[in-house]
């Protein structure tokens, strides 16, 4: 995927997220924003539609590459879900994900030692590279 394609997809991500990345997520009232907005693209003349933006359908092969780019927008981490050609976008809070994982690792390490499981009793994965298929 060349730089132009990456930049175009990133442009689509920013537009598709709209204000949802900047609007507060309060604890005292339900959010009015969809937690899984769909990825859209600008319409072309040949689309023959009055809409400026249309849902972007891509193959899973392209998605697998797309999943590795546009991972941060406005400082927020962006995750993507793929279903039948449609890309769904999710925004993650700004927290120290690596540090959180290390807390688990350290506590598990101590727990493993206390139960005589050995030094390397658990493997862990972090935020990226953890594409979890659970069907």
């Amino acid at each position, binding site marked *: 995927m060349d730089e132009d394609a990456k930049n175009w997809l990133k442009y689509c991500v920013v537009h598709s997220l709209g204000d949802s990345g900047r609007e507060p997520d309060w604890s005292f009232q339900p959010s009015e924003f969809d937690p899984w907005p769909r990825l859209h693209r600008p319409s072309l003349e040949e689309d023959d539609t009055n809409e400026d933006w249309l849902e972007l359908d891509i193959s899973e092969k392209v998605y697998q590459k797309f999943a590795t780019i546009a991972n941060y927008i406005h400082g927020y981490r962006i995750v993507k*879900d793929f279903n039948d050609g449609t890309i769904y976008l999710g925004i993650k809070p700004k927290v120290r994900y690596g540090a*959180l994982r290390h807390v688990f690792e350290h506590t598990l390490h101590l727990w493993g030692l206390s139960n005589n499981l050995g030094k390397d009793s658990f493997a862990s994965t972090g935020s990226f590279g953890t594409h979890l298929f659970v069907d």
Partner: protein
Amino acid sequence: MPPPVLLVHICLSIKVNNHAALDVHGDGKMKFFADASFTPLLARTKTQAMKSSKLGFPTMVFEVARRHESFDELESEVMDEYLSMKNSIQAFIGIKIYDDKKFRVLVVTRNNDAGKFGNPRVDLRSNLLPTDEVTDLKITIPGKSLLWDCDDWIEKDVPDFVLDVESLRFMFRK
């Protein structure tokens, strides 16, 4: 116990495996992104395999909820997907962080007496907690769940795994 900030500097022996995706294909659809997952490195000869990892399913998964995702939606996601009956993930720990310096904790495990994988059950659905105040809340995961299907531990008693939520809160306070 040292302060949480010191914990991250301690040399760890747990193997971080950022390249081996924990992917399990069912119908070819990609599902959720966990923020961390943990898999025992002990012999599990009968554990269901995954496509790109010989380790089998993780036994514990951690996720920070997405922005604008409600706590109820997070819980539904866990019950319907992470702890569906089609995989052997045994424990889920979720954190929902709000922009008004509040957070909630969700813990879901399985009832291991109920069958092969066990029905998912909600163990903890915390109240709203302030991110800028110390909490004494603890997360307890059955040891049997963490070592689920490990050959040498199937017949043995395993102490619970207990995690101080304070050590997590320290990492996402603002």
